[in-house]
């Protein structure tokens, strides 16, 4: 990976800003650490730390009712926590932009991450969420920008799965 390519979280942040995202809900995650930090220090973004990912699905719905755009940051394990709340998104056709950092798919040390890591994509699709993969540092931000347009312009639920190979293995 080139040194410049390592700033993909900064470029995703720029895509969120260009896309007028005003609220960012997140459950802390090492893969999203840089992006979370950028959101927390931006005065124009309401950063909302969640106790569980499903809270963020409802948060985003409420934001849209009020005319604001929200994004939701989580790890693949959090996808499982969202399932019933995604019926809110689907029934009301609320836009939803989920950025999911993947675990359990590449150089994983912890077997407990594998079940959701290997099923997150299928689970999201079953719940009516369109899924894009971002496995490459050069195109990750473009993928997020495209997903953002899809979510808010077409009032759709869209997830971008950010590959573990891109994030890099957690050091134990």
């Amino acid at each position: 990976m080139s040194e410049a390519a390592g700033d993909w979280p900064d470029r995703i942040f720029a895509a969120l800003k260009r896309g007028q995202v005003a609220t960012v809900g997140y459950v802390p995650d090492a893969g999203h650490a840089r992006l979370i930090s950028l959101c927390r220090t931006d005065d124009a973004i309401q950063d909302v730390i969640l106790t569980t990912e499903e809270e963020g699905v409802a948060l985003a719905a409420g934001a849209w009712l009020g005319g604001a755009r929200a994004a939701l940051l989580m790890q693949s394990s959090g996808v499982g926590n969202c399932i019933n709340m995604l019926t809110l998104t689907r029934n009301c056709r609320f836009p939803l932009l989920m950025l999911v950092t993947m675990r359990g798919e590449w150089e994983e040390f912890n077997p407990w991450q594998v079940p959701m890591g290997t099923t997150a994509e299928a689970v999201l699709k079953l719940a009516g969420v369109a899924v894009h993969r971002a496995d490459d540092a050069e195109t990750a931000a473009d993928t997020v920008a495209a997903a953002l347009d899809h979510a808010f312009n077409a009032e759709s639920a869209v997830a971008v799965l950010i590959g573990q190979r891109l994030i890099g293995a957690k050091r134990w």
Partner: protein
Amino acid sequence: MLDRRKTVKRLLADRGDALIIAGLGSPTYDVAAAGDDERNFYLWGAMGGAAMMGLGLALARPERRVLVVTGDGEMLMGLGALATIAVKRPPNLAVVVIDNGAFGETGMQPSHTAQGANLAAIARGCGIAASFEVEDEAALGQLAVTLRERRETIFANVRVAATDHPRVLPLKDGVALKQRFRRALGIA
């Protein structure tokens, strides 16, 4: 004991320009019974999500009062939301739980609040300082004033009788509910 229908009707009587999120089950019927309004968003599912929808809406519309009216069972399913709301503490958000101590939709099984759980204490413990327990007419009248006048995050647990009322069923088409709500706010 307080009657849930009269309680909700009283709290909504002078709602002003408040925006309302109603939690699934009886609170949705109570809010509908108080008078349908395009600024009401009724949940028919998504149990545990009402308070967080209220937070998202309150952050998006800081100039408007946002009132979440939900039940004890719905609030219990999303208790973490109280901790999340307490971190942000938007001054325009109020969460009012209509607590009948039972799961009304499923056969009136006693809920946790009938067996020790105190939601106002939990909310206060999460950091929502303006958390109230309401059990009688006097406290309800005070709550109505508080909702109208105080500009801080408010939580109230209103104990009501576990009585059945005829269901008043509002619109349940989620897309239609969303669109009319946004139109009422002047959003395309």
